[in-house]
């Protein structure tokens, strides 16, 4: 391993050095292939495994083969310390990942994202004093890694708190200015540190100050963002963590880190923009504008709410040919996914064709609803995406809306004053009958009225989604 192979740019390199870089190449390729496979249903699970394999390989070879500038390997004592730290982290991470409920998935992803951001920020913080005076390139990537990592950490923690219901939305008009000020301060200090001719030893105060301000900025950045926009924010912060890791990769000139980080950063950014598109909002609008600030234009022609009795609903469903269930976050909150599946099965036995219409931003995370329904054993083929189900909606006998609101609000088509105007929706209003299961007459996350509730084809079934569906199942069984 220590056999010298040759000299490059005045430094000798050994067999070990070359093997290490080769392992990074393999790891980087596994990341790319893994990510690619993750985007296809059949190969997704293997893809995840491949990416993990790449990570494990890079960790192992780094541990065994990495040499510092003096050419010394990682000593055995250090290896033990590293293994202990990795052991503790793995155990905690694995236990949480196995125990957590599927409805809490968005929180968990936020939490893990926070830890990744924290790790990047800490690495940058600790590497800064080792930078050479005036080495603008290295200092720049260190500073960027620190800022982005710290913002990703504190921002993700706030996102975690919000999704878990521990932190509320805080939106004051002046916060936009404070945020702007914080952003200017962060970037200003970052530039100052980068171009300063002082040796890093004398700038330690500045780097810690930058760390602190970045943390505050992360908190203030996520605090005002409304619940409906959370999927976008999680995805954006996810992208940040990738970029932060890539910056740290530049510090070490480590190709696996650079490629893995940028790959995740770019993929996360695209996912973020896709989601913005699904909500018909621009990224800037999500970050700066608070959603549903009480400027609802809709008000007039509300009409009457008509309720439906359980037995009538049961009859209607049993004698339908085609039913579409439109699930929203309410279904997840009520933990109604399993009982919904039972209802579905029961109806299928009676010869009813049951499908699920999934809006891209249903739930608290893109695709969250698919995961929840999959957990309840709903076959993958029954989950139909919005664009595929909409043309078929006029042929649907009953559209059952379970705990969804904004994603079926026709105001998106016909009320230019509505905050959700232009957002693609599931065309529940085109179905022959509409049953809406709701707790009460509360508004959706966007905080606006839904004219679908007043549609003359609509019947409301008030109550907790889980117990309502439970009763429906019992009712249909006795028929």
């Amino acid at each position, binding site marked *: 391993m220590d056999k010298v192979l040759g000299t490059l740019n005045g430094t000798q390199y050994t067999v070990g050095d070359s093997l290490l870089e080769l392992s990074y190449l393999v790891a980087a390729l596994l990341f790319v292939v893994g990510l690619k496979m993750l985007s296809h249903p059949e190969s997704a*699970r293997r893809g995840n495994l491949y990416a993990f394999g790449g990570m494990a390989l890079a960790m192992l070879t780094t541990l065994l083969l990495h040499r510092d500038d003096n050419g010394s390997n990682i000593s055995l004592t250090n290896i033990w310390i590293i293994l202990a730290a990795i052991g503790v982290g793995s155990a905690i991470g694995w236990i949480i990942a196995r125990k957590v409920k599927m409805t809490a998935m968005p929180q968990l992803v936020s939490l*893990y994202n926070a830890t990744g951001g924290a790790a990047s920020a800490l690495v940058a913080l600790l590497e800064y004093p080792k930078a050479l005076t005036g080495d603008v390139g290295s200092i720049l990537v260190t500073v960027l890694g620190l800022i982005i990592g710290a913002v990703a950490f504190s921002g993700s923690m706030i996102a975690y708190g919000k999704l878990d219901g521990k932190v509320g939305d805080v939106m004051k008009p002046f916060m936009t200015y404070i945020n702007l000020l914080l952003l200017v301060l962060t970037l200003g200090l970052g530039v100052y540190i980068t171009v300063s001719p002082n040796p890093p030893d004398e700038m330690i105060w500045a780097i810690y100050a930058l760390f602190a301000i970045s943390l505050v900025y992360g908190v203030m950045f996520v605090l005002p963002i409304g619940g409906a926009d959370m999927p976008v924010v999680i995805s954006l912060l996810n992208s940040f963590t990738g970029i932060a890791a890539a910056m740290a990769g530049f510090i070490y000139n480590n190709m696996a880190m650079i490629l893995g980080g940028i*790959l995740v950063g770019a993929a996360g950014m695209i996912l973020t923009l896709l989601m913005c598109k699904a909500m018909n909002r621009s990224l800037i609008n999500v970050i700066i504008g608070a959603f549903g600030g009480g400027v609802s234009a809709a008000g007039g022609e509300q009409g009457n709410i008509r309720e439906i009795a359980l037995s009538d609903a049961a009859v209607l469903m049993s004698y339908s040919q085609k039913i579409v269930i439109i699930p929203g976050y309410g279904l997840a909150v009520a933990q109604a996914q399993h009982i919904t599946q039972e209802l579905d099965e029961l109806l299928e036995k009676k010869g009813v064709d049951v499908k699920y219409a999934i809006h891209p931003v249903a739930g608290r995370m893109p695709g969250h609803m698919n995961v929840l329904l999959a957990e309840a054993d709903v076959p993958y083929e029954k989950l139909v995406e919005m664009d595929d189900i909409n043309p078929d909606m006029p042929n649907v006998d009953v559209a059952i809306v379970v705990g969804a609101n904004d994603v079926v609000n026709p105001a998106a088509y016909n009320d230019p004053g509505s905050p959700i105007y232009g957002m693609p929706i599931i065309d529940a209003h085109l179905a022959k009958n509409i049953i809406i299961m709701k707790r009460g007459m509360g508004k959706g996350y966007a905080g606006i009225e839904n004219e679908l509730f007043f549609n003359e084809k609509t019947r409301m079934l008030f109550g907790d989604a889980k117990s309502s569906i439970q009763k429906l199942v019992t009712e249909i069984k006795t028929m």
Partner: protein
Amino acid sequence: MEQVLQYFFEYKEAIFIIALSVFLGIEVISNVPAVLHTPLMSGANAISGVIIIGGIILVGHANLSSFSAELVLGILALMFGTLNVVGGFAVTDRMLEMFKKKKK
């Protein structure tokens, strides 16, 4: 202008890698069905835990002869990074497992 060109030349490999990886990242996840958004996000999140390599290098070459804040923070970074990697891959696997089993 000259300075910008100078930086570009000195860091040209890095800039090439960034440019191409950005393109790769976009290409790789384009056309992903909405069903897979959550697992994809969580899997990508786990990959961003690659910062753990930095943690290993940092703690690996840390001086153990004296107790230092650097060592403590380094170990913390390492634990955080592992949490991100192991937790992220484990939870992604758990989600995808559910997609799989419904094949009767």
